[in-house]
């Protein structure tokens, strides 16, 4: 399998792979994080970041710096890099890159729909959308009053259309429905992405399917834990799990009936890859679970750089950048709020 890719991969995608691997070395290292954790003020953070690739984005910021500004600027850098790569990409890499942003697109659609339901100004909403998930007709989402209209008028032209067709109901939108809709969409998106990667074949399929399975399993666990004690019924919960991944299908059946965190742990400990995650957190505690999952994800994403001639590096790079932005946000929040003893709680070092 690999030999075929080695022959033809660099014809179209060699340049971009080189770029993404170059960008990868721009990610903050453990030493950078150590320095950042020592900072006393946000200006110190800015000073440290100016020595990294974020420098040009932050250098013109006026001094009373805010956490949101830092996060915004760092996201801007990610978006710029993404756009650069997308411009250079050929088929099928360009489709692959677009797939990466569909998650943000779903979030934006849901955000606009929620805002419209509560009669907010569309322009105001557009400012709050994630820049990676923008598409041309997003502003016209505001006209829709129910799901059917939403689909017929706007979404049919977007790449999200096939996902919506699965979860169309003529029910009026309310908060519960919207959150379920978001997760149904995300489920459909993950499944579609999975199929697309499998179709690409080769190392891409192997690594991406692994990463997406992990993502799907993580979502399943999170949905289970977060829906404990809410009005979400077991059947509804079951419907939100993606139809692939390590837990599919028997683990999903078990998760669907879980009533508390310890039951979830019981289910998950049957699966060796997740045993280590749950071994880290003590009984009855779910706060640290997110960090454990993030750490595991970062580990898996980093491993994808060990192989060559596949697309998963792009996915991994985008995800690692997002994690890095999360880390930066956490550090700046801790510094801004004088909670430096908590800094190390949630920072997940990359590489």
């Amino acid at each position: 399998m690999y030999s075929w890719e080695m022959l033809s991969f660099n014809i179209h995608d060699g340049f971009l792979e080189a770029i993404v691997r170059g960008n990868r070395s721009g990610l903050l290292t453990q030493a950078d994080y150590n320095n950042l954790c020592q900072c006393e003020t946000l200006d110190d953070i800015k000073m440290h970041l100016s020595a990294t690739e974020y420098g040009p984005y932050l250098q013109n910021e006026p001094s009373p710096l805010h956490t949101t500004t830092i996060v915004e600027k760092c996201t801007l850098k990610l978006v710029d890099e993404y756009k650069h790569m997308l411009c250079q990409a050929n088929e099928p890499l360009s489709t692959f890159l677009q797939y990466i942003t569909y998650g943000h697109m779903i979030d934006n659609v849901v955000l606009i729909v929620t805002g419209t339901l509560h009669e907010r100004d569309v322009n105001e909403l557009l400012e709050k959308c994630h820049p990676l998930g923008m598409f041309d007709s997003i502003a016209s989402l505001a006209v829709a009053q129910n799901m059917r209209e939403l689909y017929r008028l706007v979404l049919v032209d977007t790449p999200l259309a096939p996902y919506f067709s699965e979860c169309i109901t003529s029910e009026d939108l309310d908060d519960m429905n919207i959150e379920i809709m978001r997760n149904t969409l995300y489920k459909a998106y993950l499944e579609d992405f999975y199929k697309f990667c499998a179709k690409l074949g080769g190392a891409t399929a192997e690594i991406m399917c692994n990463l997406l399975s992990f993502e799907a399993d993580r979502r399943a666990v999170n949905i289970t834990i977060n829906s404990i004690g809410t009005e979400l019924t077991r059947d509804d919960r079951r419907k939100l799990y993606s139809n692939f991944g390590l837990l599919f299908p028997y683990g999903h059946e078990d998760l669907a009936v879980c009533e508390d965190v310890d039951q979830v742990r019981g289910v998950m400990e049957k699966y060796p890859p997740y045993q280590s995650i749950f071994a880290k957190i003590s009984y009855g505690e779910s706060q640290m679970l997110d960090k454990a999952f993030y750490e595991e994800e970062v580990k898996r994403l980093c491993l994808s750089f060990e192989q060559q001639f596949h697309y998963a590096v792009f996915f991994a790079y985008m995800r690692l950048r997002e994690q890095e932005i999360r880390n930066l946000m956490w550090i700046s929040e801790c510094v801004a709020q004088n909670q430096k003893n908590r800094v190390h709680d949630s920072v997940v070092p990359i590489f």
Partner: protein
Amino acid sequence: MSGQSQRLNVVPTVTMLGVVKARLIGATRGHALLKKKSDALTVQFRAILKKIVATKESMGEAMRASSFSLAEAKYVAGDGVRHVVLQSVRSASLRVRSHQENVAGVKLPKFTHFVDPAGASSGGPSGASPSLTGLARGGQQVSACRAAHVKAIEVLVELASLQTSFLTLDEAIKTTNRRVNALENVVKPRLENTITYIKGELDELEREDFFRLKKIQGYKRREVERQMAAAKLFAEEQLAEDLALKRGVSIGGATNILVGGGDKDEDIIF
């Protein structure tokens, strides 16, 4: 007059004295009452101050916890979660009710918070029941964040109530103290001065009356003496006349001379 401002401009009469004395008694009673009120308010004031200090300390803690829980939620659920939460808010579920409390005649506004069932049932993250926000990631952090903020709001409401009471009470204490001082240092001395003044005037009048009476008495006594003397003289003259008549000698001429000289010099008679 000395201390013109220190006494009322009244006519010094006994009636007025009675009136002013009544006023002084009223002022004294009022002063005592106001003093008591001021003391009661001060006690309350101190208690509130103590509570405010305690609440402020706990507020610092609560606010820090709540804003940090927001950071946690943002870390797990992504930065976009705040927009999601913002957009799905319809009406506030946590509301503040205000009522008045009466402390020594001062109406203190008190605030209490309560969960509005209408706002809670309208769903959304503001509702009391756990919502589905962040179902796929960070739902727990979002609810933890909400719980922390609700706690912070509770502390804030309590603090607001205390602060308002504090200000109102402060104002009330100032007014009361001003009244107490005014009564003590202006009204009461003025009334007392007035009373002294009226009493002084009345004494003066009494002394004048006494003097006049004495004078009149003396005059009267002198008058009586003179009449007595005149009567005596007359009687003697009568006697002399009688003697002269008996002797046949008229002493009318002599008498005339004597009488004529008597007008000028009484001593000649004797």
